[in-house]
């Protein structure tokens, strides 16, 4: 199991049966693999479908893709709609959860994930709408980037939304942003609190006791 698989498996535990979930591009997409089919979870792709699923080889439909442009399938029970409706679902509070990648999260739980000025300008796509309005926002990301902490005291990159995210899941820890600051709730198997803090710029509030991550 690599770091990304560990993160995806931990995030999968947060998904409630029967809920509507939007998974971002990249690592967050892997979460779907660890959600049991019998849990009746529906995944939304913001380009216009609820009920996206895997696709057997050779069964591509040129009119059916996910938000990353990859070919997908539609499960029994799926529904398709236009972009205005799709973002009505998101902004209107009808989406139970979104899982997104992150470049930085700060001690106030604010996420930055859409631009590195002067270096990388991909655009926000649907991220600002998702982070602002999904009922629950989980950031799923590798804990550091090239040795640099991504969980910081104060964002250095432009924020995606002023909304406090609900949970940060990395290969080292599960951290819950709160009014008081970032609460270290869980560590990965074989990782201790000091190691997590050493890789984190923001001061962590250590929950008593700290649990070891349970993986699905």
């Amino acid at each position: 199991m690599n770091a990304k698989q560990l993160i995806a498996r931990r995030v999968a535990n947060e998904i409630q049966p029967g809920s509507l979930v939007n998974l971002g591009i990249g690592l967050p997409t892997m979460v779907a693999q660890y959600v049991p089919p019998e849990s009746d979870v529906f995944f939304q792709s913001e380009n216009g479908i609820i009920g996206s699923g895997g696709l057997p080889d050779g069964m591509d439909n040129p009119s059916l893709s996910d938000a990353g442009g990859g070919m997908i399938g539609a499960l029994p029970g799926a529904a398709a709609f236009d972009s205005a409706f799709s973002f009505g679902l998101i902004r209107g509070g009808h989406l139970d959860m979104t899982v997104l990648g992150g470049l930085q999260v700060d001690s106030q739980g604010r996420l930055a994930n859409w631009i590195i000025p002067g270096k990388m300008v991909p655009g926000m796509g649907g991220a600002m709408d998702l982070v602002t309005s999904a009922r629950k926002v989980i950031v799923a990301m590798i804990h550091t980037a090239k040795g640099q902490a991504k969980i910081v005291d104060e964002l250095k990159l432009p924020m995606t939304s002023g909304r406090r995210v609900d949970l940060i899941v990395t290969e080292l820890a599960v951290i819950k942003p709160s009014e008081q600051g970032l609460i270290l709730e869980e560590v990965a198997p074989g990782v201790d609190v000091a190691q997590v803090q050493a890789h984190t710029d923001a001061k962590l509030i250590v929950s008593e006791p700290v649990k070891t991550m349970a993986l699905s």
Partner: protein
Amino acid sequence: MKKTTSVTHAVDNIPAGAIIMIGGFMGVGTPEHLIDELVRQNKGDLTLIANDTARPGIGIGKLIDAHLVKRVTASHIGTNPETQRQMIAEELTVELVPQGTLAEQIRCGGFGLGGVLTPTAVGTLAAEGKRTIEIDGKEFLLELPFKADVALIKAQQCDYYGNLQYRLTAQNFNPVMAMAATTVFVEAEELVPAGCIAPDDVHTPGTLVDYIVNTKVAA
């Protein structure tokens, strides 16, 4: 009933320098024949409103490759390195808008509204220069309507009245764009006789459509 036109004749009616909305999401639901003909006729100086610029060689990416675009409003350009290159070289101006906001600005344009209030992007870089309005203690951004000279629409089926049915995620921005442009051009996978699309199944009524492109005929 409307007469269909060749793609060549249709694009003859699009002036260089036009403001154009183009349907599609990463090329899915994008009218490729109309884009190919814009490139062939070298219609330049275009201002685009679209979700993204797809990839080089695909969909809207072909207009970027051909240097026909001077300005684009989109939610995402990360999949097209050529768009980023032209933006950094200042050959192309890019305005980035959150995807849900983009859909609503286009909808406002087509639905006769003066703007929309959204909580998305409040306090971020994308809010710069925009008005904030507080309602019941919560902050919203006032986002203004988008309109265009031309919309290029891709449908699954189009009948000879111009009634349109879209399919799956190829729908995306097409229905709102068909409402928000002065002149609407449609390219469909299938042209079908009037009556083949049941009234309940029409996503965009034909009265909105000005040009039905028949991709099977030459100029």
